[in-house]
């Protein structure tokens, strides 16, 4: 267990280093300048701006200056949102995205697991087929189709929910549902598959032979071990929720990290882009580690390395 954790953490450092370097260097080497979007800037002012943002001199010297700061935990100043540090923007936008993503993830679990269990218990019957078709549809409909469609119906036509925005509790409902649906569908399919495997095992037969009611067999015995494969799905799922939130945050005008990221790439803001990539990648590497550790702890049969 300790070797697993140390090995992963040691591997994470060079990975993050490469990803951040790649982002920064690509942003600086590509033609176009973070300040070029504005009306013509006199060259001396441009030079002053570049100096102020530590973007003067050769690209390699900029890179080393930037990386020196990153190592100390300072992600520099955003060139797009003047006078604001990337740390500051992240501190404000990250909780928004976390709340949205976390809520979507919980929704996906609470919708997906029961649907999967419902289908598994009715294996190969009509209800199972319909439930799995629904899950496949949920997996197939892209969030950028579903989200505007739901906005059209629930917000514009029937006025039940606000169209967009952030701040009040009713504004989080639609984006969270849209973000959750593909993951709920994937979780339902996984739950069904793994529950079908578990229901064939001996300890389930024992539980039934004991005379336990079917519900207790299902919820207390089978579901508990059928949940395990879901944990390893959670790492990649969080990655999907992160990228999914790019579209959802843009559509619903939510001031989360995804929207800052898309804007920073389009505006050639090297600090902001590299900062977001660093945070996203670190978060993902960490969550993958957590899910592997959890599996190790919960399932004694599994030994990772």
């Amino acid at each position: 267990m300790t070797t697993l954790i140390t090995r992963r953490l040691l591997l994470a450092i060079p990975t993050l280093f490469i990803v951040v370097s790649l982002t920064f260097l690509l942003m600086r080497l590509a033609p176009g300048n973070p300040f070029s979007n504005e009306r013509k800037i006199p060259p001396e002012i441009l030079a002053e701006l570049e100096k102020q943002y530590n973007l003067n001199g050769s690209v390699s010297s900029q890179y080393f200056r930037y990386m020196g700061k990153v190592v100390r935990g300072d992600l520099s100043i955003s060139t797009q949102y003047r006078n604001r540090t990337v740390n500051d923007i992240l501190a404000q936008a990250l909780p928004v995205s976390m709340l949205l993503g976390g809520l979507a993830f919980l929704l996906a679990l609470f919708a997906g697991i029961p649907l999967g269990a419902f289908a598994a218990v009715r294996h190969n019957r009509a209800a199972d087929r319909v439930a799995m078709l629904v899950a496949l549809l949920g997996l197939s409909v892209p969030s950028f189709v579903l989200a505007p469609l739901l906005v059209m119906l629930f917000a514009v036509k029937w006025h039940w929910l606000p169209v967009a925005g952030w701040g009040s509790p009713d504004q989080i409902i639609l984006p969270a549902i849209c973000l959750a649906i593909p993951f709920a569908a994937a979780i339902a399919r996984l739950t069904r598959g793994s529950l079908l495997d578990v229901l064939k095992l001996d300890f389930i037969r024992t539980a039934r032979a004991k005379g336990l009611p079917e519900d207790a067999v299902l919820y207390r015995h089978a579901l508990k071990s059928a949940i395990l494969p879901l944990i390893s799905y959670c790492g990649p799922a969080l990655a999907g929720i992160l990228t999914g939130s790019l579209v959802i945050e843009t559509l619903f005008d939510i001031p989360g990290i995804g929207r800052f990221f898309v804007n920073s790439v389009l505006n050639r803001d090297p600090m902001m882009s590299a900062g977001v990539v660093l945070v996203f990648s670190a978060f993902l590497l960490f969550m993958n580690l957590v899910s592997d550790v959890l599996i190790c702890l919960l399932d004694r049969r599994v030994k990772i390395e």
Partner: protein
Amino acid sequence: MTTIRVLLPTLRRSPLLAICAAFVIFVVLLAIVGAQCTGYGYAAISDASLQPPSVTHWFGTDLNGRDLLTRTLYGARMSLLVAALGTFVSLTVGVSYGMVSGYAGGRIDSLMMRVVEILYSLPSLILVIILIATLENPVTLLLRQIGLIIVPPRIVLLVVFLGLTEWLTMARIIRGQVLVLKEQAFVQASEALGQSHFRLLFRHLLPNLSGVILVYLTLTIPAIMIDEAFLSFLGLGVQPPQASWGTLIADGASSINPIRLYWWLLVFPGGLMTLTLLALNFLGDGLRDVLDPRVKK
């Protein structure tokens, strides 16, 4: 060949699978010839702005008075083209990587699989966004130098990088299959005959992998299609005057306003895309049950 011999009875037994296969073929045909048969150009502007569906414009028209049916079919061509080429890239990379890793075995194998593991844990689409945004100008220059001015650089970037994000699963599965196949007698026979590694890999192992490849091919196409539409939706993919399902859906989403609903702008391209994805995913699932040896019967 054996793959096809298994495939046809499967389609005959499951009418739903056959319907999906027929639907996919139908959409592909529409994408190839459809846009020419509507009588409108995909970029032809007219005064009939934002018309609802009617006899003359089956899917209605957009803000610039362009026929939405023509644009949806043209978008289908672009989306399918990017998806098909991207899948080809991911197939080539994934299959050769997996085959080499599984066949080499030992330390090379564990090193190659470690790389896959690291790539799995990176936010790939986010890195693709950065690569597409920054590499556009260099690729434009490169294309001009080799004389391919007509090819939009964005399309090239999309095909290459989306292909490179989706090869990991393929590589893992192919490697697993090669590890199993490697132990079988026909591989030993080929080795005993003194055949080269190259011949063994491509003449003997590759045909035995065709079933698995077909399954994951069917599942990679919709994955790349969603990725492409996602990037185009954010303005980082296909650019006007070209259109793909992603840009059409983005147009539909941005037309939402409290005064009038232009539902056709969203429902037709979004609906056709969703149906195509559903059919492909359903087909992929069905094929996996029959062709993937790892699925327990």
